[in-house]
């Protein structure tokens, strides 16, 4: 092709663009916004995954962790290493601290631990006793930087570095619990400083070990260490010795396992929470991408079809003169592709700009700093995918449109062939006319419906997330009637602590819930007179549970289902006989007696022994109360910390979710606004396109005596019903789709409510959709008004 031909071709393309610039610009905007959001979310999610991977690799993330009551003996370490694995101490001490005037709990760790090492965002690791590296979320909340100070256990530490730990993707005081980085800090100190703190608080030391399998298996390590029993003489917790002595005095064969927690990295929600979030985001984003791109491709295809109809005579003439179909196809592909390319590039740039603001997880989880830049793959896909899709769809449509015989193309005729042979005589005229319009251009109607559906899907996603979290918070605030929740390892069976209400809590794993992080459920035996849980458990059989709404949602269970639980050795099958409106934890409620039956008899014996030698489990003599290991209260109780496994407060349980909810607002706003924009653009370009196609008919009706208003009613009000019907179908469908996405998204959070869309949300979505329609109706009414009445006269020879 010579230069003149290329120049002529380009001039034609430019003129083609100029004559219908509004529609091409609108579609480029649609593509830019759609791809911008998509690229932003993908970039943010892939940056998260990349950072986690980097943190795990550089920090030598342990394959698993083991928590023991006392340090492992040299022999135990050697036994593990004999398996081929490597096991190293990664202990910590929880001590009081103070940051920027706020009292905190500080988890002090050794900066020189050999596995699960920190990754620094800034500064260096501490080397002196008065130095510390602070975990980044705590530093961010308090505005700390290198050179600042914070108080740890009464001493002032100068911050030498800010960073993250690979097994603290989510900064939580307890595994599986949401935390508040404002009140909880991780600080890594020099080895000598750690030893000093540990020596000052020997009973606050948690003996944690990280292991690298290096050829061994988790099960081998678990089995080996699981056999180790605790030597009471070495235990720092005095109750270990007390309990053991009491049991021995009573002639009971009680021994405590040395390992209190065995957690492979794959099961660690602190690691998997962020990964799960990022993967869910990517999955949702990819589905959205396909929908957006298909929509764009088909809208562009409609444009192409329209161009070909309008250019019919020109095409026929060119064809008559010998222009090949291939050349014509290329000509009609150039503009859609140019617009797609421009929209995609702008979308990529927009996504790049948006990505740092969409890093929801970066504010919630702690992981190494990572450049939030589109990966080459994302960049390539964001350009190649739309271009390929648009080429394929447009080529199909254009080829079909060009396939008409040349003599037919040469004959000028108004757009449109015969309608569908459907009898509509009985309908009122206006309904008949509108239905004929719909039957005439079903593609456009389907595209508008699809566009509306996509926008509603995005709106449901955004608004539903916010409503679900709001509802959860409201319910949680209403439901959490207690202020403090204690779990005890060494309960004092002489009496329940004054002011407390006892319960039996048995954490078990749910069989068949693989794939959901934190697949646990706590069987909670509560006395009938407990004031905190409105559950009627008295009539329950031993194999029956009333589960909380949280468990029902998380594990998709309902009354009549069977729930199988196991504790690593034994399994129990329960019939779910009801669901209680308790949304904050996955509980299976039963009577205390039934719950005790699930507790290791050795533990029951030890507890009984401590309170009254010779008493039998479940007996109520000698002033000994039946076994309990959980206490709920409406105020802090005076319980010896050495008896406790954990202590949670209402504020802690709600705090993390409140923060997560606040962070959601950014995504909700972005998703809502972009979906609104997409809806307006899709409606606008397609309705305008249909109006353009009906140019002749509109002119004819005007010539016959129809007013502009009547023309508008006949040609534009159809879309009101189309949008309304699309919304009516899209809302429940989107809620169903997003419900499943939500379940996966929240599986690692202590959230137990299904995806909710409130009547207010529905009204808002309907309002937004109708608002978008109203904007488009006003804009396109102008188009119908500008159709000249003399247009009808142009079809003459």
């Amino acid at each position, binding site marked *: 092709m010579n230069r003149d031909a290329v120049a002529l071709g380009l001039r034609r393309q430019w003129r083609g663009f100029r004559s219908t610039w509004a529609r091409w610009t609108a579609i480029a905007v649609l593509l830019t916004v759609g791809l911008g959001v998509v690229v932003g979310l993908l970039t943010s999610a892939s940056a998260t995954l990349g950072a986690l991977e980097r943190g795990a690799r550089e920090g030598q993330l342990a394959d698993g962790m083991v928590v023991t009551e006392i340090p492992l003996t040299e022999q135990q370490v050697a036994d593990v290493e004999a398996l081929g694995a490597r096991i190293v101490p990664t202990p910590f001490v929880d001590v009081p601290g103070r940051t920027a005037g706020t009292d905190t709990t500080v988890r002090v760790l050794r900066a020189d631990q050999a596995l699960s090492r920190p990754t620094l965002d800034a500064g260096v690791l501490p080397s002196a006793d008065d130095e510390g590296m602070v975990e980044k979320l705590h530093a961010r909340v308090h505005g700390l930087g290198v050179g600042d100070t914070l108080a740890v256990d009464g001493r002032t530490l100068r911050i030498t570095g800010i960073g993250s730990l690979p097994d603290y993707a989510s900064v939580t005081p307890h595994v599986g619990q949401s935390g508040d980085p404002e009140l909880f800090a991780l600080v890594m100190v020099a080895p000598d400083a750690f030893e000093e703190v540990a020596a000052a608080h020997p009973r606050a030391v948690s003996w944690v070990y990280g292991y690298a399998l290096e050829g061994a298996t988790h099960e081998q390590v678990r089995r080996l260490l699981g056999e180790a029993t605790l030597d009471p003489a070495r235990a720092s917790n005095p109750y270990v010795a007390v309990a053991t002595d009491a049991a021995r005095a009573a002639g009971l064969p009680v021994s405590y396992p040395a390992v209190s927690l065995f957690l492979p990295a794959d099961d660690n929600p602190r690691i998997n929470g962020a990964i799960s979030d990022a993967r869910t985001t990517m999955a949702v984003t990819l589905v959205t991408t396909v929908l957006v791109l298909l929509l764009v491709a088909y809208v562009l295809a409609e444009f192409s079809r329209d161009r070909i109809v309008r250019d019919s005579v020109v095409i026929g003439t060119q064809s008559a003169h010998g222009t090949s179909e291939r050349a014509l196809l290329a000509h009609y592909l150039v503009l859609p592709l140019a617009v797609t390319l421009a929209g995609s590039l702008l979308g990529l740039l927009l996504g790049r700009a948006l990505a740092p603001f969409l890093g929801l997880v970066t504010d919630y989880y702690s992981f190494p700093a990572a450049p939030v830049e589109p990966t080459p793959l994302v960049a390539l896909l964001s350009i190649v995918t739309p271009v390929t899709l648009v080429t394929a769809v447009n080529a199909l449509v254009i080829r079909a449109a060009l396939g008409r015989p040349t003599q037919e193309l040469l004959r000028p005729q*108004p757009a449109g*062939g*015969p309608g569908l042979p459907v009898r509509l005589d009985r309908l009122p005229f206006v309904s008949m*006319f509108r239905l*004929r319009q719909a039957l005439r251009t079903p593609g456009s109607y389907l595209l508008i419906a699809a566009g509306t559906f996509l926008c509603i899907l995005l709106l449901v996603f955004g608004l539903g997330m916010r409503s679900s979290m709001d509802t959860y918070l409201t319910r949680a605030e209403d439901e959490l009637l207690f202020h403090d929740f204690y779990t005890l390892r060494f309960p004092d069976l002489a009496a329940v602590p004054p002011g407390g209400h006892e319960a039996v809590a048995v954490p078990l794993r749910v069989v068949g819930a693989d794939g959901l992080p934190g697949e646990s459920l706590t069987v909670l035996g509560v006395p009938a007179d407990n004031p905190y849980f409105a559950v009627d458990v008295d009539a329950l059989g031993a194999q029956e549970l009333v589960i909380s709404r949280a468990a029902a949602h998380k594990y998709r269970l309902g009354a009549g289902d069977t729930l199988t639980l196991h504790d690593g050795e034994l399994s129990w099958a329960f019939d779910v006989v009801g669901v209680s409106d308790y949304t904050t934890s996955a509980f299976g409620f039963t009577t205390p007696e039934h719950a005790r039956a699930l507790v290791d008899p050795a533990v029951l014996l030890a507890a009984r022994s401590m309170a009254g030698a010779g008493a039998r489990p479940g007996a109520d003599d000698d002033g000994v109360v039946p076994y309990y290991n959980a206490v709920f209260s409406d105020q802090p109780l005076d319980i010896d910390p050495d008896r406790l496994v954990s202590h949670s407060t209402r504020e802690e349980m709600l705090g993390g979710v409140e923060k997560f909810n606040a962070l959601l607002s950014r995504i909700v706003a972005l998703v809502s606004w972009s979906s609104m924009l997409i809806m307006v653009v899709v409606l606008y370009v397609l309705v305008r396109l249909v109006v353009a196609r009906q140019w002749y008919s509109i002119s004819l*009706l005007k010539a016959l005596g*129809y007013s502009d208003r009547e023309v508008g009613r006949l040609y534009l009000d159809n879309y009101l019903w189309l949008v309304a019907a699309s919304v009516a179908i899209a809302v429940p469908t989107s809620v169903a789709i997003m419900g499943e996405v939500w379940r996966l998204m929240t599986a690692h959070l202590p959230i137990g409510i299904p995806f909710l869309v409130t009547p207010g949300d529905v009204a808002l979505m309907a309002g937004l959709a109708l608002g978008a329609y109203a904007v488009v109706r006003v804009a396109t009414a102008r188009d119908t008004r500008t159709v000249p009445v003399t247009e009808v*006269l142009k079809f*003459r020879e």
Partner: protein
Amino acid sequence: MRVEGLSRHFGAGESRVEVLHDVTFSVARGARCVIVGASGSGKSTLLNAIGGLDAPDAGTIHVAGEQVTGRSPRELTRYRRAHVGFVFQFYNLVPDLTVTENIQVTAQLVRRPLDIDELLEHLGLTQHRHKFPAQLSGGQQQRCAIARALVKGSDLLLADEPTGALDRHTSQQMLEVLDDVHRRYGATLVMVTHNEAITALADQVIELRDGRIVRDRLNPHPLAARDLDW
């Protein structure tokens, strides 16, 4: 109908074209008037002005005592709705509406339209009533267009080259139909054509050349369409 001093030009400067120049004539109520002229003589522009589709630069048009010229677009719409039925050369039917539905399009515009079934019967379209335009012959489409123009009971029927797209045989049939409906429904018929032969069936013949009336004559003995000699 009275047309007085009507002028219309298109373009400006060197490309300015005087399409109508000081055109004046009257047509009696219920008459059949044929405006004849070569291509570019201005006859269609004149018809469009009478139909309220186009606004002249100067001059006035009165139909049934009402002035058509000088009205706003909205008033012109009302005028077309109340008084005018159009028959176009290329039928201009809505392609995705059936025959009945195309007629309904204009029937909707008036309170008391003529009976559609009766019109269909009279125009020989009853058996085609559920067909779409693309399924009809040219003659059938034009009959449908005539039915559409008549159904409002308009007092002015404007036909722009109604046989221009038809073969001779079908054209003759079409003229018979027009002749017949004119007699039956009594509307004033103004027909534009380049075909001199058609003037034989008119009560009044206006010849246009280069935008001017060169002859305006009454035909004391109009022929019936079936007797027309092409």
